[in-house]
């Protein structure tokens, strides 16, 4: 009936006056998956979440929850719960009263409520905090109360709106692992909104990258990072060098992909791959991740698709990595990251500005993008 689909968004549009906050979104979120909506502020991710929660109704399109249309069902009749960015704990109630609220609204008998509240608080390791007020707890603890308050209702989908935004970095990393573990234990579908790519990559089964009200790409973290389908996604997730030019030729196949040669304004030819052939003459961008490019003193193996003699412009040593900027051709600066895998005694073997070397990468290490 619902074919394992928890939430199905079909052509959903949300318009605020003249502004289309959400512009014809289609998205299927599977049962039991940790799904993230990732994008810069104003990309429509929070509006989409609020429409699933029922705080906003779509201007057009349909939202299905396990096969039932819920687009116009009020929030309090949807079996969906939210963890708010600001937590939105009720300040005049104790932690236990906050957690019990949902069950009280459902008229669950009091003994059962007491039982389930203590279970829920144990689950988030706040068993002894039931009688405290929210303001007496730290940010991380409030966060866990908000989780317990939502999860106690056994929602069909749990919505999380940048819930870790207010926490400091270390705590945020801990909570990321804890959240993912919790999600696996309870087996509830999590829909997570964030603008933090690392957060999304760490926790998600799948990620939807959004921009200006549209979904640009949906895929697993590796798909999103390794095979972005457009320049925005490649740029937003991680870092990348973009070498612009026009397609000189679609060359031999490399695995399932096609080799693409792009000629830059400088007259250099760079090579990458694309899942489909691209017509000669079309403007294209080569996306090259800094860690997928190599910089060596020795010449690369014979037959390397991309091989350039370059000068080192700048070197930043950041501990685990060394980040090197090299000049390619007349005006292009390419960033190369080298992992510091050398022995601890070898302190001087790093690149110096002004040195020359070979910048090279196999074609399949770079992507040719037309969007």
């Amino acid at each position, binding site marked *: 009936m619902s074919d394992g689909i928890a939430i199905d968004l079909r052509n959903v549009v949300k318009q605020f006056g003249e502004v289309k906050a959400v512009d014809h979104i289609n998205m299927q979120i599977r049962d039991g998956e940790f799904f993230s909506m990732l994008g810069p502020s104003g990309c429509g991710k929070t509006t989409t979440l609020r429409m699933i929660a029922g705080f906003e109704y779509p201007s057009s399109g349909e939202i299905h929850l396990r096969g039932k249309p819920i687009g116009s069902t009020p929030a309090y009749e949807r079996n969906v719960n939210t963890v708010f960015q600001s937590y939105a704990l*009720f300040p005049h109630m104790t932690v236990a009263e906050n957690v019990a609220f949902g069950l009280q609204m459902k008229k669950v008998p009091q003994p059962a409520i007491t039982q389930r509240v203590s279970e829920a608080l144990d689950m988030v390791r706040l068993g002894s905090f039931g009688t405290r007020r929210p303001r007496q707890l730290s940010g991380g603890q409030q966060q866990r109360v908000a989780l317990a308050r939502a999860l106690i209702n056994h929602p069909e989908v749990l919505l999380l709106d940048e819930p870790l935004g207010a926490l400091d970095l270390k705590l945020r990393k801990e909570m990321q692992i804890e959240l993912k573990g919790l999600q696996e234990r309870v087996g509830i579908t999590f829909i997570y909104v964030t603008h933090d790519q690392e957060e999304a990559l760490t926790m998600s089964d799948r990620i939807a990258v959004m921009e200006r009200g549209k979904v640009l790409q949906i895929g697993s973290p590796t798909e999103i990072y390794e095979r972005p389908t457009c320049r925005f996604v490649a740029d937003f997730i991680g870092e990348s060098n973009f070498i612009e030019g026009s397609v000189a030729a679609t060359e031999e196949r490399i695995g399932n992909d096609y080799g693409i040669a792009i000629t830059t304004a400088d007259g250099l030819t760079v090579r990458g791959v694309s899942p489909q052939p691209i017509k000669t003459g079309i403007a294209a961008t080569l996306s090259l991740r800094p860690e997928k490019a190599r910089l060596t003193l020795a010449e690369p193996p014979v037959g390397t698709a991309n091989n350039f003699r370059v000068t080192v412009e700048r070197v930043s040593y950041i501990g685990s990595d060394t980040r090197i900027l090299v000049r390619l051709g007349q005006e292009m600066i390419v960033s190369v990251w080298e992992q510091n895998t050398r022995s601890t005694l070898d302190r001087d073997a790093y690149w110096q500005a002004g040195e020359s070397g070979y910048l090279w990468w196999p074609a399949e290490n770079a992507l040719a993008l037309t969007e």
Partner: protein
Amino acid sequence: MAIQSAPLNEPNRELERSLQRKQRTQLGGLLGPGLFWLIAFFALPLAVIVIYSFMTPGSTGRPELPFTLSNYGRLFTEKLFVNAYIRSLWMGFVTTLLCLLIGYPLALFVIQAPPRWRTVLLFLVLIPFWTNFLVRTYAWMVILQNNGLLNDLINWLGFPRQTLLNTDGAVLTGLIYGQLPFMVLPLYASIERFDFTLMEAASDLGADKRQAFLRIMLPLTMPGVAAGSVLVFIPTVGQFVVSDLLGGAKVDLLGNLLQRLFQRSNPPNWPLGSAMALIFMLVLTVGVIFYFRNTTEQNR
């Protein structure tokens, strides 16, 4: 100078003492005006009233010796006074309740209006203060009288003219009209600080609008409800202008009785009036303390 030959710590102690003296003068200077004001215009008159209330009324109404408890006795036994107390408290209660029922949605409406309208709407709430209260009450007489505006409307709609003026309803209308801003303003301040995300959270957890309001919004805006209620209730219970003009002096409230005891009745009776005012004050003070305790405690 010659003093310099004194031991080193001597001038220090001297300095300290002069500083302390200076601080004391400063403190006195700052507190003085307020303290003087309170003593001269609050504590002393109150003391006078307390003393009056235990004295015997003379033939002109002036308090005379000997001291007596009979004023208080009359207040608690004579029906006229007991009824006025009950009636005043009742009118105050009804006015406060109705102001709350009208004021809360009004304050909410103003807060949810677009920001540039908010100031305008709040300003509209305050505009009646620009006209003298007595004048505004006379205006209500014009509206409510037998050939007044409201009756013209009723008549035009095909119904017989009603007696509107000189009724409890007229007094209540006047009281609510006059006191409503005092309810709206503290409510506005309180609701403005309310985090409306909490209403979404309540709705998310299965509360419909009514439940979310009763369980979340009302408790959290209780300080505004409490402040507004007190600001409306206290002046209302002591009102005499409105009940005089719109109630045709038929509806006796405490304020009317007090006014009469001090000025109009023949002879006036200052000791009895003093006793009445004091009991009134006591009832209100105790009531307000209890009210604040019960309404705002749960927010701590």
